[in-house]
């Protein structure tokens, strides 16, 4: 497998959706290619950063406003207030 081939199957490998035979070729290529290994690692880190919801902050003013609105609506629908 050459670097070009690896790029084409990169997503499937990172997502664990690659055919086992291709996976073996991929892993073998990575063992001998430091740049590709770094690219795979940093792709994984990139996806992980964006998946980590703790990075995001809901603006405090909006959060307070939203929770108040939800509580009011709950009381209207559940207590007939």
């Amino acid at each position: 497998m050459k670097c070009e081939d690896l790029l084409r199957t990169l997503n499937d490998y990172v997502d664990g959706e690659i055919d086992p035979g291709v996976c073996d070729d991929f892993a073998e290529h990575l063992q001998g290619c430091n740049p590709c290994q770094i690219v795979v690692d940093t792709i994984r880190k990139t996806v992980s950063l964006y998946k980590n919801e703790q990075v995001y902050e809901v603006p405090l003013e909006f959060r307070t406003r939203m929770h108040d609105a939800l509580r009011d609506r709950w009381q209207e629908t559940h207590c007939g207030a």
Partner: protein
Amino acid sequence: MLVTRAKAGDYEAFDELVSRHERRLYALSLGIVRDQADAEEVVQSTFLSALEHLDGFREEAAFGTWVSRIATHAALKIIRKRRGLETVPYQEEPGDDEQDTPHPEYIADWRGDPAEITERHELRKLLDEAIASLPENYRLVFVLRDVSGLSVAETAQELGLTEANVKVRLMRARLALREKLTRAFGDESTRVVPDHTH
């Protein structure tokens, strides 16, 4: 189970559900609509909808999955309205998915944990700038797949694309974001020059 208690009339349980999912919904919404006011509108309307339809929630999927789908629909509706295209799906731009695979240029290990390297708000700013730099057709696929957690098939259905389109755009989005973030976090001393003949 929080959902069971909320359905039984326990508001504190519903409030806890909101608290557990609001960050992810906000991130997902902001990633799609790219406007704070619109993202807030999406998140609030999503939880209001969840509140009003809680009795009908069959719990076949997780609560988080359910509200993610509601938020995704609401956010995409805003985008379509902006473009004046209420029902037209996201047509691929001609030849867009046929271009050569972009090659990584800046290849370097990331020094340490990015969250430790930068203050959290600086990290958010970097992530935000990077995702804002993506063309909309790549950004939407990335947000639906990697932030919202939709499958390839679900992402394709939401955006009116083929699964092949989704895979190509996702790869381009991930490579573009990786490139940008490596320029911020990369350890120059580990930088390697790509050999495109290898």
